[in-house]
């Protein structure tokens, strides 16, 4: 049976979709079967980041409503063959997501995949609560700034009360993925430090993803950063996070400076920042 992961944050724009794609591709490159599921009905993005926007025929809502079978809606990635996408509907309303329908689809996915990674929409409304409802593990994506941290705290509270695991008295496994981190700015006090975020949220750290142009470039190329540029600093951080998700124990490194191969410009910037 597969493991269901929800990638959630509360706040928008912190990197849920990027992280879903990057972690999904990283796990799939280990040879495990991975399905990434977009729960952001009406505002889907995961198909773009995965570079599959022209291949969407059926979506999550079609499967829930019985218009299509799950294999018809799943899109196999062209680069990593064990990676699949279940896209969200762009035209339907999120009210089409029913708790029973979501439960059925997740149950079916668990039979065929090792990992099911649910990309939650922002907010704490229906879409977000349904995305987390059947999860075994939560990845809480947080930026090192106060509003993102507070929203993540709110989401952790919901993960501990509104999920099937929580309601059956079990403890929800939660991990912090700190994204868009910039050590120089944290040292200057422009950003929260890693210790501050960990102290406030008090959940274990899955990884620290450095702020990097490589992430944006990969998104615009339509490839998860762990596929587009697997040697880049954010990709390596995502690979490490994926290994931790799979159960390995690795020390978390704080990305100290920008990638050396980033050229002269990044060296100048990092020196100026230091």
């Amino acid at each position, binding site marked *: 049976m597969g493991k269901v992961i929800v990638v959630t944050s509360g706040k928008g724009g912190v990197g849920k979709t990027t992280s879903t794609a990057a972690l999904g591709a990283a796990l799939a490159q280990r040879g495990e079967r991975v399905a990434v599921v977009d729960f952001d009905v009406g505002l889907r993005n995961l198909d773009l980041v995965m570079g599959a926007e022209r291949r969407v025929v059926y979506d999550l809502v079609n499967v829930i409503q019985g218009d299509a079978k799950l294999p018809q809606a799943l899109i196999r990635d062209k680069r990593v063959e064990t990676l699949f996408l279940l896209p969200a509907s762009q035209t339907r309303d999120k009210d089409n997501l029913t708790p029973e329908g979501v439960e059925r689809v997740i149950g079916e996915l668990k039979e065929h995949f090792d990992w099911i990674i649910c990309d939650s929409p922002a907010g704490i409304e229906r879409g977000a609560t349904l995305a987390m409802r059947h999860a075994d593990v939560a990845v809480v994506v947080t930026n090192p700034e*106060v509003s993102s941290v507070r*929203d993540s705290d*709110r989401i952790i*509270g*919901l993960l*501990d009360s509104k999920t099937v695991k929580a309601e059956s008295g079990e403890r929800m496994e939660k991990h912090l993925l700190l994204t868009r981190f910039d050590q120089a700015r944290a040292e200057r006090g422009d950003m929260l430090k890693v210790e501050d975020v960990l*102290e406030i949220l*008090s959940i274990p750290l899955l990884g620290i993803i450095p702020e990097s142009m490589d992430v944006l470039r990969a998104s615009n190329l339509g490839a998860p950063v762990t596929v587009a540029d697997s040697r880049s600093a954010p990709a390596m951080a995502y690979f490490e996070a994926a290994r931790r998700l799979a159960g390995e124990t690795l020390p978390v490194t704080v990305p100290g400076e920008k990638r050396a191969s980033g050229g002269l410009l990044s060296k100048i910037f990092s020196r100026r920042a230091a």
Partner: protein
Amino acid sequence: MKMVTVLTDARSIRIKGRSFLAVVLSPDLPLDHWLTRLDDLAARSAGFFFGRPVVLDVTDLPINRDELKGLVTALAERNVSIMGIEGARPSLIGPGMPPALKGGRPASDVEVANAAPSIEVRSAAAETAEPEEPAMVEVSGEVRSTPQSLIIREPVRSGQSVIFTEGDVTVIGSVASGAEIIAGGSVHIYGTLRGRAMAGAIGNASAQIFCRKLEAELLAIDGVYKMADDMAPGLRGQAVQLWLDGDAIMAEKLS
């Protein structure tokens, strides 16, 4: 010409919670029969309703707004003044009528003493399907004679609200920004207090707030409030105890 009033009085306004025991009347149909039985009860224990807060419970009672208004008037004629109506649909409550109440918690039955032995009332009530015997309800929390404690062993997250009017609240962990603890007794935080803490929330001037690290948004004891900006900067980030001295919240570092 308009006058602009400048608030020069720096004293804070006290807002307190207080609990009263109210008598709850649950009428049944037809109302005139019920009123007759009520008159009978009143005749046997004169002055039972005098000066008592009375709540009218109309849960599941199929009456319209005019009938309810008539009932309130009929009760007023019998010197039963209704302080609130429980279980009414919002459409039933109109202007000039007692406010809607909710959240009442059951308490023990009221003895209709003196004039009539309570056994007689009970047997009379047993004859009718719906007993008109008044039941007690707590309008809000009540501090019981035996103090109670609530201990929370995990962080209180943003958006969560812990309300425990029966006694002390202890949190072994932090209270996040946007979370709140409301205790009838004292509040103890073995972690960082970033949200709100209200001690003595239903009236208890001897309640205190303790925390290992003070980063609170708002503190209140017995209805006296203090915002983050009003707190001495030297206390921020420190282990602090807070108590009430008259109308002022006092604070001191815990050594």
